[in-house]
């Protein structure tokens, strides 16, 4: 028996996927199943005067047409949003509040007829002036939400840190920078659209819901609260999910309407969204306008950080944040740096856009925060005429300061930022790149080097601070070992490609000295999996991974008793090492976990329950804090504004690595998403409230040809509080990379006097900056 942790084991889930035998939502077919299609509002803001269903209902094959009025009569029109401070319409009722908002649902015997029926629903609208800019919304000239008690578009004000001390420190700083930095609205766009098959079985009284869900237990509880059906009568199954990235966390109107239709009609109802619906109605990401100020001494030591953010939430506050964190974990904005004082505030506003905000591997607003601080440090470096690597190094939280209490309330568990950066700079050949850049600059060539040294925060989270709809953010594991030594492992998380069927088996295999190939891992079925909060915000390894280790250790405790019994020694003489139970002082006398498993069923010690299983619900004592150092090297075409990414190196520190192959895959994927955000992705609404990026021809996902080659490496700084020292990594590349790209392009344009450009850095944006700079000379 050899180690399972740290092994690049091939994935156990792959055999079905490579054969096309995965079971995704749209693969599920039930007898008598009907199909739901949705009617959408063409207007960003309008009163709904009437909805005429008659022509649609007359079409052969159409079984029902459902409107907001129908739902309101059944008290199902309003959904609580995740962190509970707002509610959202299921179907537009009285008013439509964003272009493409769901207005009605048509249920029919085939997909095609459902769409034919959608065309026949006649809706009369009275268009109203839209509000599409949060700064405009702030003025409260047009109030969007007449369903709310306070008639204002301002949703909340959130703040953290010391406002006065920070203001004073900024005022007395020798050097000061201030910049408005945009983290633009974008969308996670997993390749599998969202969908549901809702099946109300009147004979058994049970509602079975197949749903593209990153958190099936929470969804089950939410459905129970909304419909009044008790949880034991609801069975949620999240089948194979084709990518989540936060898109499959919220509860969408299509899910509710399909469920209502099934309850009313008594047959299964399937709803699978179109790509257009995915991009225009499901949870967007970002849309933070951040005013960042940093103070520093003349020799580049930071004195203070202030960030004031205007957040555009769309028409409802459906940001899927933990309840007490309306602005997520934005307080990580001090990043890797030891700020003596800091202050951050967020003011959120409604606009006539789709709701959302928490998605696209954001770790709950950590992408926004990390982008803000890393861009600003570069702007500061330029003002100080200091190398950006040197500025960072000078201000890193020192290795010996951990656990480190940041001025914005986080206690960072561990990190050696200096070592991670040094590894990155050595590997990329930083000094010779700077030399090459100097030579190129003499010839007017635009070459740039961009650095991002990020620290992020994942593993939500300790129950005393973190809950979703009141449910603490623990996670769970249940392990049962069979008589012949293989086992079944169930967890409360739900992977969408992250490889849990493999990595969880590795964690348990390591703890129990069992072969991961013989540990079946299951997630996603609420009838069998222990209650968990799901997979998002890189929480699976930190929380469920810990639960798995702890459950396995409970098994090992009992196993030790059985081992002692088998070897006829006292328990005190038995020790676990080298994946076996050994007897102290008697080499060669040992039993394996397999021996113990068999004995647990055939020969348990007296007064010991037979069987070998354990459950653990893990409430993490803290978050975990992965970090990284990324370097991008770019060359900019002066004539077209095209940016060629010549090299990109990512050095990540996610603590102990369970499966290096899987971690590397996560990094590749996240870097590709970060690349897309930096250069080509934005969800734009024009001044009239029209959504301009409704499909993949207008919302761009890079192909293999645009995507750079990724170089990766790692440092390992274990988390001291995690049972196996692991931190989580899925979102780090999204958190850390956009700013590396942008810093590189700004570095390339620095000789032209360009100081900041917002993402996405399209060719035109870069071209225009170059032309404007040339016009000045």
């Amino acid at each position: 028996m050899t180690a399972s942790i740290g092994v690049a084991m091939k994935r156990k889930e792959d055999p079905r996927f490579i054969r096309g035998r995965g079971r995704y939502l749209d693969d599920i077919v039930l007898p008598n199943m009907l199909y739901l299609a949705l009617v959408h509002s063409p207007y960003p803001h309008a009163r709904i005067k009437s909805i005429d269903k008659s022509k649609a209902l007359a079409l052969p094959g159409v079984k029902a047409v459902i409107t907001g009025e129908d739902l309101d009569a059944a008290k199902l029109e309003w959904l609580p949003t995740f962190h509970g401070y707002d509610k959202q319409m299921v179907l537009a009722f009285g008013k439509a509040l964003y272009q493409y908002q769901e207005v009605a649902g048509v249920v029919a015997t085939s997909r095609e007829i459902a769409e034919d029926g959608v065309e026949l629903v006649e809706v009369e609208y009275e268009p109203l002036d839209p509000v599409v800019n949060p700064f405009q919304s702030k003025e409260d000239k047009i109030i969007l939400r007449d369903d709310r008690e306070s008639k204002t578009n301002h949703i909340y004000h959130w703040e953290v840190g010391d406002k006065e001390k920070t203001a004073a420190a900024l005022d007395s700083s020798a050097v000061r920078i201030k910049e408005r930095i945009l983290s633009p609205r974008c969308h996670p766009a997993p390749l599998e659209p969202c969908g549901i098959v809702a099946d109300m079985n009147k004979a058994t009284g049970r509602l079975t819901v197949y749903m593209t869900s990153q958190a099936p237990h929470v969804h089950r509880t939410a459905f129970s609260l909304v419909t009044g059906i008790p949880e034991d009568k609801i069975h949620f199954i999240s089948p194979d999910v084709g990518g989540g990235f936060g898109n499959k966390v919220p509860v969408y109107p299509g899910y509710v309407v399909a469920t209502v239709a099934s309850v009313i009609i008594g047959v299964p109802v399937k709803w699978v969204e179109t790509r257009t619906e995915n991009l225009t109605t499901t949870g967007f990401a970002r849309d933070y306008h951040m005013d960042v100020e940093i103070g520093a001494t003349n020799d580049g030591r930071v004195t203070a950080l202030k960030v004031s953010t205007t957040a555009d939430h769309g028409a409802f506050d459906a940001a899927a944040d933990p309840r007490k964190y309306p602005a997520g974990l934005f307080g990580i904005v001090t990043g890797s740096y030891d700020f003596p004082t800091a202050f951050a505030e967020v003011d959120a506003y409604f606009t006539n856009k789709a709701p959302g905000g928490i998605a696209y591997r954001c770790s709950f607003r950590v992408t926004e925060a990390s982008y803000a601080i890393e861009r600003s440090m570069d702007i500061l470096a330029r003002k100080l005429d200091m190398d950006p690597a040197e500025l960072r190094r000078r201000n890193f939280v020192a290795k010996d300061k951990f656990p480190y209490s940041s001025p914005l309330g986080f206690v960072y568990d561990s990190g050696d930022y200096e070592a991670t950066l040094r590894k990155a700079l050595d590997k990329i050949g930083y000094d010779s790149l700077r030399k090459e850049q100097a030579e190129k600059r003499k010839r007017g060539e635009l070459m740039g080097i961009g650095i991002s040294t990020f620290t992020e925060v994942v593993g939500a989270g300790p129950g005393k601070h973190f809950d979703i709809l009141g449910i603490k953010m623990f996670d769970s594991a249940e392990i049962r070992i069979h008589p012949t030594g293989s086992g079944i492992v169930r967890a409360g998380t739900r992977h969408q490609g992250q490889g849990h069927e493999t990595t969880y088996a590795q964690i348990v295999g390591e703890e129990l000295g069992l072969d991961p190939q013989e540990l079946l891992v299951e997630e996603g079925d609420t009838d069998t999996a222990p209650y968990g909060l799901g997979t998002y915000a890189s929480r699976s390894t930190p929380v469920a991974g810990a639960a798995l280790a702890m459950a396995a250790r409970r098994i090992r405790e009992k196993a030790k008793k059985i081992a002692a019994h088998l070897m006829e020694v006292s328990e005190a003489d038995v020790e676990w090492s080298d994946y076996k139970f050994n007897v102290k002082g008697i080499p060669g006398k040992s039993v394996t976990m397999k021996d113990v498993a068999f004995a647990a069923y055939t020969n348990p010690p007296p007064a010991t329950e037979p069987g070998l299983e354990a459950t653990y619900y893990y409430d993490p004592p803290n978050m975990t804090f992965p970090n990284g150092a990324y370097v991008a090297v770019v060359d900019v075409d002066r004539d077209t504004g095209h940016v060629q990414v010549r090299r990109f190196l990512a050095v990540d520190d996610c603590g102990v690595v369970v499966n290096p192959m899987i971690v590397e895959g996560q990094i590749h994927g996240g870097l590709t998403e970060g690349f897309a955000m930096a250069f080509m992705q934005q969800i734009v609404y024009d001044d009239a409230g029209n959504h301009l990026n409704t499909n993949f021809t207008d919302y761009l996902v890079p192909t293999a040809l645009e995507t750079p080659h990724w170089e990766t490496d790692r440092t390992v700084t274990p988390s001291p509080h995690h049972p196996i020292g692991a931190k989580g990594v899925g979102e780090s590349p999204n958190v850390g990379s956009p700013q590396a790209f942008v810093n590189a392009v700004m570095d390339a344009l620095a000789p032209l006097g360009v100081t900041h450009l917002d993402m996405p850095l399209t060719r035109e944006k870069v071209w225009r900056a170059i032309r404007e700079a040339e016009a000045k000379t």
Partner: protein
Amino acid sequence: MFPAAFEYRRAQSIDDAIAALAEFGEDARILAGGQSLIPAMRYRLARPSALVDINAIGELGYLRERNGFLTIGALARDFALETASLIRERYPLLADTSAVVADPVVRQTGTVVGSLCHNDPAGDWPVTSLAARAEVTLRGPNGSRTVAIDDFIVDSFTTAAGSGEVATEVRFPSPNARTAGSFQKIERKVGDFATASAAAYLTLAPDGTIGKAGIAIGAVGPTALRVAVAETLLEGKKPTKELIREAAREAEKLADPTADNRGSVEFKKAMAGVLAGRAMTAALGRLGVGGLE
């Protein structure tokens, strides 16, 4: 995203297809590659009453030189041009174009003739066809006719083809040894339509001056545009950096784009100029005339 209902007829010959079009009337459409038509139908932006599928007419799949022309049948796929050594060696302008149309899967089904008939303002084949002075053959109930590409291209998504006619072929004059071209395109990613594109097709006279020039730009107007002023400027002159720059400026002036997700009017016009310049430089480079970058 399902199309509205329609009738379907599979034609076994060109005459069959013409007869079917007549039978179904003017809302019928020919289905060849369908890579532009079917997506439009799925959005219900196109709602033909009937599709006449010509994919079974095997004789239309040809790609060969004949009587001084490269003839491309209606069912010759982009992929055929992308992979043919004939095209790579003798028609580099077409090789360039076929490598960047749509994406590599769509190219296996999309056709050159279909793309010309669709006449998307941002399409690539119309640009190249203008530069190389191609001709399109149409067959209808009243017989056959060959139309010069400048006359074939009428307006956005509109060509000279009558509703009862089938385009059966596009042909490009075969080049002599002193003729070469280049196609340049800016796209935000593979599969995107061009932000701007340009094609240059140049013939050198024996004395090293430019004998004949074909310059066209795409995605910057209601259709692909011939930059006639640039052609006149180039013809009879020795190629120099300044001459190319002047000609490129004419391309920028002529460009008449609309602003959209791909860029503003100003940016697209500028790119039309930059790409026209790069196309001319590359074409001349292929003819052994260097140092013009």
